[in-house]
């Protein structure tokens, strides 16, 4: 149709004319699309990469550890129906000495996979695997090797079972078992201070006293094999040999972390883009409907010429399509770029041979599609309203709107207001919906910045609670095996040690009816002072003489409240089962632990009394000496130094959290500018006539700017505290949806975060206002004398 091509020219020109506004809207759309693509694409990339790597390396389905079993037992394990591959391994905790690195380093020494068909194959990144008969040769996991700068040929010393052995690194590897590597009991990975090494069975067995025996099992199952059945059969085989209960892949540390990470990403992929998309949708609606209301006149003229409502509606939909198109292209590009960058960060965090970057066309299309749909709905609504008017009616200018005094003025503050101030208040109260939408839009972007600070603040809070309020020990020692109770006094008498408190951790399955959870039951000394348990208000909770304390999240999981009884099935030694009363709850950000008196715990295991670790308080200047002395002792599996743990934690978290906060800041800033600029810009065109009149009457540029910008300014200021509240709500929701058995993020938002959020909004407002101020200088004063709105 020839007529439509005229209209086409019209919309293209109009789009160009309103390019500033259109660009601001497009950027908001782009922000929404970008966050969605960022999250989805990261999930897809991680999932795909994980599946590939697991398949290539035959990642095991079942894992079990035990005290010690003769290799003859292996045959019975291989006979379990459903088992296709099995590897009987030796796993030895070690303390390591890396030349030129003073901090304590611990690690795990594992036997190399038995054959090329065994589970958990290693992926060689550099160097070579030790030759079959090569003694004292190891391969190291990549994150550790990289962090410590270990190249093939490097030498490190290991203290295995109290004996020092010099090892040569022949290669660097990746393992499906340690994609995410974290020292058991730690909250966060520390690549410099914890490593995994693999060596030949003969060397390791000899060094660890495991000749002809194994203490660790990995199995892969045939498709369709029944996991619970395999586990119970395996447990039955291993029980006489000190098995502590096999676990499925779901409970394997690295896999569990990966799954949680992906689960969290999925939660984020829903929440954050949802927030952005709804803000964007809302903005589009506001801006487009105001834009179209301004088009009353041209629309009426087109109708008077005989254009149909359909043709006119299509015309405006095309205009909006132009905006969505620009936003879509920018959003997909930015989202893809950010996702690529984030995959890079994940590649640091998770160790895969290579990160496959996946951006599915469907994801991009659905993001753009949703944006378009929202934009079209907003447009249709306004266009239909406008096009329903008869042309003659629409050609007539709108009657002067009826104003009344605002509620606020009736309280009596009117006498203190200038006429300009009254105009501001009345304009706001005359258009409550419009003002409310502007306020909400700005408040939402303020909320996003506030939310962006959540992780930083929460982590600082967690560190403060963990290292300053809860943990007072300078060193935490863990033994490779249960140590006799006299060890406590031995360590206490070490020169430099001022306080020593024992602890014992035993694997248990806690049960309340059908609900169970496998965790560590920790025995503490009642009245101990080196590791405080805290409740939700950070008050100290004493270790009770009888009964058990549960992490509040664990209590919820088991569905128990203090006063009720649960069953504790100990998974080692004589495997006693006890009914214990839950006597209190403690608040912990990581893990799901249960605590009881050390004495009570030891009474449960009469043949196996002892301690599995110690909290030590040490004279500050003797720390290194005590550490060196501990390392020489057999059975000391690891030593955590509090100061080092704090430092390494900060090193790790700072970067990732800052990147996240920065992305949120940029996106929220975009939205804030989009809202403030658009609402002021539209207000300018709506009120140009009035403002120009005032200029003619002798008001200065600044005086009319006050009237126009005062309104947006006031709304923006009101939006900031509103945004804080919404941001807190978003944060609470995110914390709630991220809470897992691994950790819970507390909802903590510190004043600097609020200050930054306010600053972003004020700056965005100021930048938009400055531009509008500049525009106000170019009002056409002559036109107002002749034209009527």
């Amino acid at each position, binding site marked *: 149709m020839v007529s439509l091509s005229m209209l086409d020219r019209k919309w293209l020109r109009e789009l160009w004319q309103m390019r500033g506004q259109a660009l601001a809207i497009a950027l908001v759309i782009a922000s929404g699309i970008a966050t969605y693509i960022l999250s989805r694409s990261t999930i897809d990339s991680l999932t795909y990469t994980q599946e590939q790597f697991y398949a290539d390396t035959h990642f095991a389905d079942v894992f079990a550890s035990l005290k010690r079993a003769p290799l003859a037992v292996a045959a019975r394990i291989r006979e379990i129906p459903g088992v296709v591959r099995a590897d009987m391994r030796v796993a030895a905790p070690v303390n390591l000495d890396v030349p030129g690195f003073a901090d304590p380093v611990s690690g795990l020494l594992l036997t190399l996979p038995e054959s090329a068909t065994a589970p958990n194959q290693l992926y060689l990144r550099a160097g070579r695997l030790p030759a079959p008969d090569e003694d004292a040769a190891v391969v190291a996991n990549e994150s550790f090797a990289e962090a410590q700068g270990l190249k093939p040929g490097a030498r490190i010393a290991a203290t295995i079972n109290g004996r020092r052995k010099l090892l040569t690194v022949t290669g660097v590897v990746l393992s499906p078992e340690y994609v995410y590597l974290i020292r058991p009991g730690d909250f966060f990975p520390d690549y410099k201070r914890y490593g995994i090494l693999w060596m030949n069975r003969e060397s390791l067995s000899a060094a660890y006293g495991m000749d002809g025996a194994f203490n660790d099992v990995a199995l892969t199952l045939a498709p369709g094999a029944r996991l619970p059945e395999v586990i119970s059969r395996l447990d039955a085989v291993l029980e006489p040999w000190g098995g502590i209960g096999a676990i499925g892949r779901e409970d394997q540390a690295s896999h569990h972390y990966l799954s949680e990470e992906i689960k969290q990403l999925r939660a984020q992929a829903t929440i954050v883009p949802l927030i952005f998309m709804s803000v964007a949708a809302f903005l589009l609606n506001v801006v487009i409907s105001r834009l179209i209301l301004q088009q009353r006149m041209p629309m009426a003229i087109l109708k008077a010429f005989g254009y149909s409502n359909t043709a006119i509606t299509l015309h405006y939909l095309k205009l909006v399509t132009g905006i969505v198109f620009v936003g879509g292209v920018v959003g997909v590009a930015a989202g893809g770029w950010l996702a690529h960058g984030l995959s890079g960060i994940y590649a640091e965090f998770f160790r895969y041979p290579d990160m496959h970057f996946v951006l599915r066309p469907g994801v991009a299309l659905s993001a753009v599609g949703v944006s378009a749909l929202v934009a079209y709905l907003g447009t249709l609504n306004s266009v239909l309203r406008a096009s329903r008017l008869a042309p003659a009616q629409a050609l007539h200018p709108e009657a002067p709107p009826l104003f009344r005094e605002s509620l606020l003025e009736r309280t009596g503050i009117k006498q203190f207001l200038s*006429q300009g101030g009254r105009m501001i208040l009345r304009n706001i109260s005359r258009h409550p919906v419009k003002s409310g939408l502007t306020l909400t839009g700005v408040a939402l972007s303020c909320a996003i910045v506030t939310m962006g600070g959540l992780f930083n603040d929460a982590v600082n809070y967690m560190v403060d609670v963990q290292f300053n309020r809860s943990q007072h020990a300078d060193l935490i020692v863990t033994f490779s095996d249960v140590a006799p109770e006299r060890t406590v006094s031995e360590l206490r008498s070490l020169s430099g040690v001022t306080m020593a408190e024992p602890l014992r951790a035993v694997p248990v399955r806690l049960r309340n009816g059908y609900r169970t959870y496998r965790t560590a039951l920790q025995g503490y000394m009642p009245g101990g002072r080196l590791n405080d348990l805290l409740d939700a208000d950070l008050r100290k909770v004493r270790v009770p003489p009888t009964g058990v304390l549960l992490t509040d999240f664990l209590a919820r999981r088991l569905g128990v409240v203090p006063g009720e009884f649960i069953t504790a099935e100990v998974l080692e030694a004589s495997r006693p089962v006890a009914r214990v009363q839950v006597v209190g709850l403690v608040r912990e950000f990581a893990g799901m632990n249960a605590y009881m008196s050390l004495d009570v715990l030891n009474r449960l295991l009469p043949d196996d009394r002892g301690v599995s670790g110690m909290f030590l308080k040490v004279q500050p200047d003797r720390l290194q000496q005590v550490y060196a002395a501990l390392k020489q002792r057999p059975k000391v599996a690891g030593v955590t130094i509090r100061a080092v743990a704090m430092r390494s934690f900060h090193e790790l978290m700072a970067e990732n959290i800052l990147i996240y906060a920065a992305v949120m800041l940029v996106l929220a800033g975009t939205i804030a500018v989009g809202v403030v600029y658009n609402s002021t810009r539209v207000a300018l065109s709506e009120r140009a006539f009035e403002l120009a009149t005032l200029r003619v*009457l*002798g008001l200065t540029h600044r005086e009319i700017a006050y009237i126009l910008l005062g309104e947006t300014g006031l709304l923006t200021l009101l939006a900031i505290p509103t945004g804080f509240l919404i941001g807190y709500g978003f944060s609470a929701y995110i914390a709630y949806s991220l809470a897992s058995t691994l950790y819970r993020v507390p909802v903590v938002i510190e004043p600097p975060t609020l200050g930054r959020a306010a600053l972003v909004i004020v700056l965005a407002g100021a930048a938009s206002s400055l531009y509008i101020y500049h525009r106000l200088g170019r009002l056409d004063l002559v036109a107002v004398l002749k034209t009527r709105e």
Partner: protein
Amino acid sequence: MAAPREISETGARAVFRTRGLRKTYVVGEVSIEALRGIDLDLYTGEFAVLLGASGSGKSTLLNILGGLDTPTSGTVHYADHDLGQASDAELTRFRREHVGFVFQFYNLIASLTARENVAIVTEIAERPLAPERALKIVGLADRMDHFPAQLSGGEQQRVAIARAIAKNPDVLLCDEPTGALDSETGILVLDALEKVNRDLGTTTAVITHNVVIADMADRVIRLSDGRIVGVTRNVSRRPARELRW
């Protein structure tokens, strides 16, 4: 054409003085000569009507006198001020201190009451009338707290006149003040302008294409095609209430 002079035959001093005033607009690739050499004096206290058809240049002349536009060439003086050379800030001050405007479409602020519409100008004026007094002069003492949407067109225009005179301006510039009104209402508005001119002595210039209005003026200046084509002095001014069209 009247000879240029600073003192009228009645002895009044000139407030505005233009010499060789030209204004050319360039719109795209077309240039339009709106004023082609205007020599004009307006005297203290006089009621002048600038009469002309659409496109005669009368609005352009009023805009330049009112400090809303600057001439392409020639000079325009208000008392000692050279308006042709003034900056934007100086023109704003000039409008603020000396000029009252009345527009064809009233241009009231919809969110302010009649009283407040006047007050927005008196707030920034140096020696204003009380808004109530200004509204009383135009006969709206009982409508002061009404919003524009609650007033008729004639009432709105009288609020606009009250707004224009409340700052106690030296000159009142009115651009087709009755253009949007029926004749009966228009006469009420003209009556208010006449009263202001008589009682406050404000120099008043009204531009219109309505020949009838010329009868109430001291002087009638006819414009056509960007030039002054005739100046006539009425021997006696006809009261606005007697006008009919």
